[in-house]
């Protein structure tokens, strides 16, 4: 099963995998060989790839979509990086910035909620990466 993750800038990941776990907007979703065609909305979080040799690769992705069909899992995301490349301080700063945003109208509140959720997920992922 092939797993491809692309950002608007480049193709970040292209691997042969046995099993893929993607972070959907409301929790993790696992895709194995022969999965039914599916399109899902991604949240921010950890993308886990179990490779052919049973080793596990971890990536961080932020928003976008996953499409699985014909044993190809493709992720369209705005940001993708190796788990180990996450910077905890930067993530915390992003969370603070998100928390300081105004929420004076329903639209602004919605934008803020989304920004905060994304930033929290990044902090969580960065903390997890730092513990490893």
């Amino acid at each position, binding site marked *: 099963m092939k797993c491809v993750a*692309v*950002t*608007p*800038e*480049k*193709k970040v990941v292209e691997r042969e995998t046995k099993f893929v776990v993607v972070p*959907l*907007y*409301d929790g993790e*979703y696992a895709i194995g060989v022969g999965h*039914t*065609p*599916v*399109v*899902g*909305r991604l949240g921010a979080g950890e993308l886990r790839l179990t490779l052919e040799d049973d080793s596990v690769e971890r990536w961080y992705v932020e*928003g*976008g*979509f996953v*499409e699985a*069909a*014909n044993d190809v899992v*493709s992720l*369209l995301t*705005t*940001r993708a990086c190796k788990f180990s490349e996450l910077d905890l301080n930067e993530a915390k700063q992003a969370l603070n910035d998100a928390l300081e945003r105004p929420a004076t*109208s329903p*639209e*602004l509140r919605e*934008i803020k909620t989304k920004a905060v959720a994304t930033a929290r997920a990044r902090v969580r992922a960065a903390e997890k990466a730092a513990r490893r």
Partner: protein
Amino acid sequence: MELVATAQFRRAMERAIAAGSYSERVVRLVADLARAGGDVSHPLLDKRESSKKAVLLILTANRGMCGGYNGGVLRTAVARFEELKRTFENVELYVVGKRGFSYLTYRNYKVARSFFEFDDKPAFAEVDAIASELLERYQTGEIDRLDVVYSKFYSISKQRPTAETLLPLAALAAEAVADEGAEEASSAGNLQFEFLPSPRSVLEEIVPTAFKVEAFKCFLDAAVGEQIARMVAMKAATENADEMISSLTTTYNRARQGQITNEILEVVGGANALS
């Protein structure tokens, strides 16, 4: 300089192709959605009734030496600006690139925001910051329309200064419908997708993404166009210089030969007079 521009053009081109494939995938997803969920409607796709404020984003280069590139974009930009001013009470100018900024301020246009940090490789994160800000202002109803003027890339030998409307994103729905028709004809991709959590929710996410990618593509096209323009301009400059060198060399040689002939004549004349 021609060689430098050629190298930079190659790099910019690769990035533009990567972004192109990304946005193609997005359009295909929207087409899948249209097939599964029926109508494709989203606040960002609908035309606004009110016409209070519009933003015109102009993408120019930071540096010159690229022939008519900046001039072409700015002429189109000024025409679009005047056109927008007829329908909107207030039109803000967002200018990318020092060339555009100095041109417009010199002509007393009020520039609301200017950005000089983009060079031959615009990063998505940088474009995303501007795009998100504009998207937010559009969503909160502060602006009613966003137009962009840039040099659109058709092929290596053809780029044109173009004015396009980015918000509302009417183009996305149209492309998706066209794409859907094409796919049905080819009978490929007849998969029925399951949408998580729902087609509606996926669409809510996909439209802002499509907008950002579209904006990013404009920046990349502009970068590619700038490098091509510079390449062509510098090639012409090198050729002109070569031509000038050869004509000046001829003139110099002729003058030198003339002087030598003169001297010989004087020597021969002197010798004749003595004998």
